[in-house]
């Protein structure tokens, strides 16, 4: 390894671009699903149905306390054995969505718990149903509080998506790694890869900031 070979990177760009495309695709779909899973788990955990809350709590613990890589393999190897033959990309999206969704549900739960119980009482006192209270009063307020930690979860998701290369998904990490080991271009490829991941996560951080500013409640001084 003599010097940094820019020419190699430039020549690899079309190839890298394909990887970027797939990483973005997986990240966007997984983010949307993770968000939905997160809200659903958080909502189910605050219902009165004891078996449901227990089951959800167990699912959260199982998921967040085991490595994503192991979960990825469990879905990849396990789903076919119950007759579900999904593409590696689909398996990657499923495991990323569930893993991140569980973390998002915890973020939501913290946000929901931070909304004063009085808000709940005021809404129920007006005759709003439990679900209306969640949707119109609790959730909109919790969302404003959790935007920053929520952004971190999406950033983690993008970085974690690199693990799907282990089940032969040709994402950004896969093409970087392949270039690095096949052509002995370790520095070139890994540094390029790091920069691209940084750019992708940077976009999320930027979006988070913009959303945070736009959701600010009028008349509230300082942070939301």
């Amino acid at each position: 390894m003599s010097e940094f070979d820019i020419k190699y990177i430039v020549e690899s760009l079309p190839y890298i671009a394909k990887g970027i495309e797939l990483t973005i695709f997986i990240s966007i779909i997984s983010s949307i699903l993770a968000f939905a899973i997160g809200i659903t788990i958080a909502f189910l955990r605050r219902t009165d149905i004891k078996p449901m809350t227990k089951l959800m709590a167990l699912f959260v613990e199982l998921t967040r306390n085991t490595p994503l890589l192991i979960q990825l393999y469990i879905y990849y190897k396990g789903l076919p054995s119950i007759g579900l033959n999904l593409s590696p990309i689909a398996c990657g999206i499923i495991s990323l969505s569930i893993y991140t969704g569980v973390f998002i549900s915890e973020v939501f739960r913290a946000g929901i718990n931070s909304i004063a119980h009085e808000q709940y009482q005021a809404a129920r006192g007006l005759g709003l149903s439990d679900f209306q209270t969640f949707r119109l009063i609790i959730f909109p307020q919790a969302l404003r509080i959790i935007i920053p930690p929520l952004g971190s979860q999406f950033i983690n998701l993008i970085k974690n998506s690199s693990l799907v290369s282990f089940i032969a998904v040709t994402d950004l990490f896969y093409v970087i790694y392949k270039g690095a080991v096949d052509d002995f271009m370790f520095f070139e490829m890994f540094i390029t890869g790091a920069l691209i991941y940084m750019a992708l996560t940077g976009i999320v951080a930027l979006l988070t900031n913009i959303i945070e500013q736009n959701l600010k409640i009028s008349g509230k001084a300082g942070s939301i």
Partner: protein
Amino acid sequence: MIKVEKIYKAYKNFDVLIDVSAQVEKGQIVAVIGPSGCGKSTFLRCINGLEKVSKGRIYVDGKEVTAPDTNLNKIRSEVGIVFQQFNLFPHMSVKENIMLAPVKVKKISKSDADQIAMALLEKVGMLDHAHKYPEQLSGGQAQRVAIARSLAMEPKIMLFDEPTSALDPKMTNEVLDTMKQLAQDGMTMIVVTHEMSFAREVANKIMFFSQSRLIEEAAPDKFFHNPQSEITREFLRSVLKLEV
């Protein structure tokens, strides 16, 4: 209008309400007083089912609140409640706070709800603040908006849970004036309060709670000048420095 029959309420090992029975007639203004922690706020919240009783029955306008199959949302839409801490929804403007329940619970059109909201804001003297957010209001203003928000559902009964305890004297008067106006309009009201002047001037019945029990019920005149219970006399002596 409201009938409370032998209700009990316990949290874990602590009895909050013991054997409370009471009745409130249409158009009556009831002041509920007593030392902190005596159960008066819990009593109020049991009436619209925000707190569940451990035992006993409560009827509002002939419907049993405490029955397991009661549609509590329906009852709550007919029984307004105003809290000590106002509890306006901070992410909605003043007008949106008022329009929410009529639109979402009563399913009336937004334009009708808008008219109701503006009329009520005028009534409570807050018309100029319709587009502000709760954070921009003083405590007295916020509480008047909270009253308007409850009135928007056209309740038959209004419950007030220490509505002026978080306010300074000037703001307290603003809110009390609004409540007096409501009383004159013939609203049935139950007011948990430490404002003895309000209890004396506006209420036509006093309920005195102490140590989880309803100790005494009487018209204000009788209550303040000729209380029947020694516990009441002790309370009036120590809190109000009254010679009774």
